[in-house]
């Protein structure tokens, strides 16, 4: 952890003890096995709202605490550790960022307080294909009277069944690949012509595919200016990436702790397996990866709070934390051996979550390429 303020330390401690007590990984398993609607417990969500987590990046005039992204990262690391499922990330980080970055004053006043009090659940509806490529957005937005008609599909929308408002990226001009011509719209989940269906993913979280059939939106549903949505979208995505990296770091750090504990207790050939040098060195290597990944994650969050080097540092963070999570989730299984392969043990839950997070908002390959481009080669 970076040198935290007292307030941040307090929030970290609170998040750590709350997740461990009220929302440990067993709770996630229960949600999965009972097939709870929308893939999270309503009481989890209420508790988060009550603790003020939904307002961490929202200015005080809209009901938030404006503590910033580094603070949000502290919380997400803990929810990542316990695989706590909720719309916190989708709504209070991604959705809120889109409004903060692109919204008019009227939109902010109309929406942000609802995010804070949990009555509004926002989510970004961006992807249209299996691989992250924001500038390929094609969902059609046709000018129609004073507003627009949206037609097309969106996939892999996080908390898509729970959300009551979608931030939809659509094309108002140009074609897939053009950086101009993308616009962002706020679309009510109950809008006529919008249908959604839950998809079942390996990580047992809530995702939906959306189908929009000439969904009518008024002109004031647009975030920012027409055709100029991509910069807002990209800035929102960078906030999402930084936040997700913090969650991924938590997931990987928990996998590391579980593995280290196993190394210290599991016996084979008459001694604890952690005394085998090959495993000890492997653990040392993973520890190194973890410390480096943590530095990247914190730097990306801090960069957003400081408004500098955001693009480079979020790509660094998503890529390096992703690398650590990939390796760590595999080693979590490998070092646990047979027990790690059983559904009864938690390792599989972390592995499955790891690969899902990897696909979100650009995988390592995407961010390696982006990093190189930003660095000028």
């Amino acid at each position: 952890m970076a040198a935290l303020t007292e307030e941040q330390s307090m929030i970290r401690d609170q998040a750590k003890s709350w997740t461990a007590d009220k929302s440990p990984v067993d709770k996630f398993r229960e949600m999965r096995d009972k097939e709870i609607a929308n893939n999270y417990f309503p009481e989890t969500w209420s508790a988060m709202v009550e603790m003020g987590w939904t307002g961490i990046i929202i200015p005080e005039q809209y009901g938030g605490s404006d503590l910033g992204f580094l603070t949000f990262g502290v919380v997400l690391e803990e929810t990542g550790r316990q695989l706590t499922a909720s719309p916190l990330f989708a709504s209070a980080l991604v959705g809120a960022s889109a409004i903060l970055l692109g919204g008019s004053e009227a939109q902010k006043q109309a929406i942000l307080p609802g995010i804070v009090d949990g009555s509004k659940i926002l989510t970004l509806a961006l992807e249209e294909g299996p691989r992250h490529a924001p500038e390929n957005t094609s969902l059609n937005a046709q000018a129609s009277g004073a507003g627009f008609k949206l037609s097309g599909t969106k996939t892999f929308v996080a908390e898509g069944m729970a959300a009551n408002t979608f931030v939809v990226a659509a094309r108002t001009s140009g074609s897939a690949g053009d950086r101009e011509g993308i616009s962002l719209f706020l679309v009510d989940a109950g809008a006529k012509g919008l249908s959604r269906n839950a998809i079942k993913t390996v990580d047992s979280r809530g995702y939906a595919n959306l189908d929009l059939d000439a969904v009518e939106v008024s002109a004031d549903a647009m975030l920012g200016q027409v055709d100029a949505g991509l910069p807002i979208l990209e800035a929102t995505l960078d906030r999402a990436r930084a936040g997700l990296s913090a969650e991924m770091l938590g997931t990987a750090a928990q996998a590391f702790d579980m593995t280290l504990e196993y190394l210290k207790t599991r016996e084979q050939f008459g001694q604890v397996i952690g005394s085998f040098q090959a495993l000890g060195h492997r653990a040392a290597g993973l520890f190194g990866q973890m410390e480096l990944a943590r530095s990247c994650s914190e730097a990306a969050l801090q960069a957003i709070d400081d408004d500098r080097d955001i693009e480079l540092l979020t790509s660094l963070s998503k890529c390096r934390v992703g690398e650590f999570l990939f390796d760590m989730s595999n080693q979590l299984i490998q070092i646990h051996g047979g027990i790690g392969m059983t559904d009864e043990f938690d390792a599989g839950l972390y592995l499955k979550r790891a690969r899902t997070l990897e696909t979100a908002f650009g995988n390592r390959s995407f961010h390696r390429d982006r990093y190189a481009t930003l660095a000028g080669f």
Partner: protein
Amino acid sequence: MSNEQALKEFETTTRAWVKENFPPSLAGTAMGLEGEASESEKADFELWRQRLAEKGWGAPTWPVEYGGAALGHPEAKIISHEMAKIGAFNPIPLMAGMGVTMVGPTILEYGTDDQKNRHLKSIASGEVRWCLGLSEPGAGSDLASLATKAVDNGDSFVVNGQKTWTSGADISQWCGALVRTDPAAKKRNGISFVLLPMAQEGVTTKPIKLISGVSPFCDTFFDDARAEKADLLGDLNKGWSVVKRLLQHERQSQTQARSPGGGAKKATLQDKAKTYAGTDANGALADADLRVRLANHLMDAQAHGLTVNRITAEAKGKVEVSAAASILKNSATKIAQTKNELTMEFMGTQGIGWEGDDFAAEELENVRDWLWGKAISIYGGSHEVQNNIISKNILGLPETTQQG
């Protein structure tokens, strides 16, 4: 007649027999006839099993008297090949569980005549399924620390303890189990290998659900279970050498890397990658980073295949066989696991489906393969155990003092 001519002739007669005897209704169906099958399909399946069993082709290399056909490996290969050509298959090894691949060959080597007579035919015909009771909760890679004990009780042993990772124990009729018969002896001594029927009061099984959602293995509990003395395989307290041989049979069946390029029918890995990730103007994979790793993977797979070929050639040739075979397990594992991860990667969000119509069957299948594949580096001698073996047995490095 030269050997080659004889094989050629065997191929011709085999082709004819398979064509004549294989029920066309089964062509291309799943080997185990899993899921729903019509009554007529089930009847055809049973007919096919019987015909194969009569011919001795369930375990073609075994002696005729024990249900085999006394054929060589080249002939056995021809049979598989000719079957594959018309979508036929040999269901018996699967139906016999661990019988054809592991238990049977070990009984052939270590069994008494009585044991051979009683057990082998029903394995070779696919009528009796076998499981293996080796690992225990406290004895996985370190198998020799097993605790299940068998106490002498006159004509039989009384067996108590728990086995885990017993493959198909809930549907098997017999079990080959490693048990401790002399608690006073040092770890690897004092162990025996016994055969015992699963349908008895003292045996209960509990399927283990895996991360991929399936339950092919069980926990198996022995609670005053009985194994006849006549079913002690090999000498008393010498079970370690039996199981070593058994595990060699297992390893042999695990060193073939799945061909990453795939057959003619299936799209190759690189074609699938191009479909999902797109191509640039030159037809190269648009994701240059993925392209590098895909190339490395295909090279790994080709290098592995060439090594398998080399070992075969060396075995035939005059030079001493190199120690290369020892590396195949880890190499095959890496290839299989990397293939699954790369496939996950290029499929993106379509690669992380669990079920439902929003994902193609092949996409969902890869997810299961990916999860299941994590076991390959664990079972049959883990990655770490393989490295210990290479380091010690092949390279001659001294044992660390840690090893039991």
